[in-house]
């Protein structure tokens, strides 16, 4: 295990050390101390590293991650795991706005609550939130799965494309073109896999599924009121 003290080396020192590791490095396990809510910690990683961050982080922690597994033992700021390509990012606390924004792949787990716009424009990432998500979550969500074990705020899935949304609690309101959909066996199996990956105890049968009505896929003036 290797240790890095952000207080001593700064964000640049952390990232440049982690970027310098080859993909087949033996030095896989890293612990980052004193993150102190700083922004852009462990962004742009491109190797199968295991990274533990001991404290709270600011914006964009784990941004554009490939292959690495990050665990944040604290709360996370805006845009956690934004545009993640693969790997795992696990927030033990809460996460602020736009968690998993535009993520292409990998798994983002937030044990606590996520704020507004969770999974905005997601493009293939899987997101599991143990608590609740705020308004406009999964806005224009293109692909991937968003699992919410708590409640969802207003306008869930507004202008959604092909992403799948699973919510266990209440949905304050659905956004334009987002509807409740039938939960078929393949969805239950998918949900079971995601809940297991996120160490959740909830049962798939407790969730309801939401997705696109696909009525706004091609512009029609008769739907102008929906926007």
């Amino acid at each position, binding site marked *: 295990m290797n240790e890095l003290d952000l207080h001593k080396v700064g*964000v*640049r020192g952390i*990232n*440049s050390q982690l*970027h310098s590791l080859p993909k087949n490095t033996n030095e896989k396990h890293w612990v980052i101390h004193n993150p102190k809510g700083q*922004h*852009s910690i462990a*962004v*742009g990683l*491109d190797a199968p590293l295991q990274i533990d961050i001991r404290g709270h982080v*600011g*914006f*964009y922690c784990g*941004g*554009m991650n*490939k292959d690495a597994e990050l665990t944040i033992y604290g709360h996370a700021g*805006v*845009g956690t795991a*934004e*545009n993640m*390509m693969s790997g795992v990012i696990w927030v033990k606390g809460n996460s602020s*706005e*736009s968690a998993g*924004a*535009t993520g*292409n792949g990998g798994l983002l787990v937030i044990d606590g609550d996520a704020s507004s*716009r969770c999974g*905005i*424009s997601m*493009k*293939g990432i899987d997101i599991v939130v143990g608590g609740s998500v705020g308004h406009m979550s999964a*806005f*224009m969500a*293109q*692909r991937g799965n968003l699992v919410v074990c708590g409640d969802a705020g207003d306008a869930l899935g507004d*202008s959604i*494309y*092909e992403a799948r949304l699973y919510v266990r609690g209440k949905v304050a309101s659905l956004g334009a073109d987002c509807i409740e959909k039938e939960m078929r066996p393949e969805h239950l199996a998918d949900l079971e896999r995601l809940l297991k990956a996120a160490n959740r105890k909830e049962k798939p049968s407790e969730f309801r599924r939401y997705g696109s009505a696909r009525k706004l*896929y*091609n*512009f029609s*003036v008769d739907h102008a009121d929906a926007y």
Partner: protein
Amino acid sequence: MDKTPRTLPRKSATFDDYTLSEIRRAASTGIYDIRGGGAKRRLPHFDDLLFLGASISRYPLEGYREKCGTNVVLGTRFAKKPIELKIPITIAGMSFGSLSAQAKEALGRGATIAGTSTTTGDGGMTPEERGQSKTLVYQYLPSRYGMNPDDLRKADAIEIVIGQGAKPGGGGMLLGQKISDRVAAMRCLPKGIDQRSACRHPDWTGPDDLEIKINELREITNWEKPIFVKIGGARPYYDVALAVKAGADVVVLDGMQGGTAATQEVFIEHVGQPTLACIRPAVRALQELNMHRKVQLIVSGGIRNGADVAKALALGVDAVSIGTAALVALGDNDPHFETEYNELGTTAGSYDDWHEGRDPAGITTQDPELAKRLDPVKAGRRLSNFLKVMTLEAQTIARANGKSHVHNLEPEDLCALTVEAAAMAQVPLAGTDWIPGRGGY
């Protein structure tokens, strides 16, 4: 027959033929008019400015003997690897999706021969474009279509797009008919559906967040790449100041004549400011922050020839970008295809339904048969020829004004033909020493 003299039929200047045709079109279809390109209305522009030239009070340089530099370095503020271009004319961002792969390749080839950069667009980076572009600027847009860290690292610079001149404050829409399998795959969406591009970024709002976002992109790319921030001509003084505050290396400012792949006609013609009106407020913001020439300013929107280049540089710009002119150089709107333009209900020179994907010139299309019409090698050569001519023209003007580098051109080399242009460019009205707004009148 009544011999009483009659007045001629008189058309309304307010309800002119175009306006009437649009009312009929709207009444018939129930949908606003979508088109590509930039503002087509007459606007104060570089044609309203003239260079004074040299005589006794200024010495000119010898046209074919004395050197007149044209190089420009972009990204000198923070980037470890600034980019150096041979000419101060770059190719603006245009997406694969909006343009064919052949057209994107041709832009890369032409720019590379001429020693300048080209720019991706809303749809990611194609191997054709990267392979043929010595210097490639990678756009970072609200949609993040195709965005990935590998391409980010392959880029020579990163351009965070906040807006564009044709539609400042607007997003985009690539209509379903242009969504081929390849375009759909690059954007992670099903084939054949309209692809909306958001007008705001998904994970930041406002200048304070932008600073953090710029910092993240620098961290991901180890502070190597110049970071450009592109804005539409909305409030250039404040927007440039905020881009500088947020840490931009380069600001790209696009006036309302700058083209777009597709948006509402009403947006193109009625939102945003003309390019000429945007430059001086932008330069003033840089000067007041002591950042002029430290943060480079690139201006686009209606640049057509070397005179426009020279005039923009004289007003304080470091480089210009061309989009529409580059497409025309490739072969867009060529009279060679007049019959086919007629079949589309238009004429060469006026074709702007780029979003429909039926471009006879094979440029703004994803139809493989149409796209095949454009030979990327020949079209690239035409673009490089055009870029070279523009550069020679700008040098000709610079030498005539006694400048050994095009960047030495300055506002006092200019006068204006109209009061409006004098006020916007802050140069004297021709034949006077009057600059509107200066000295209290």
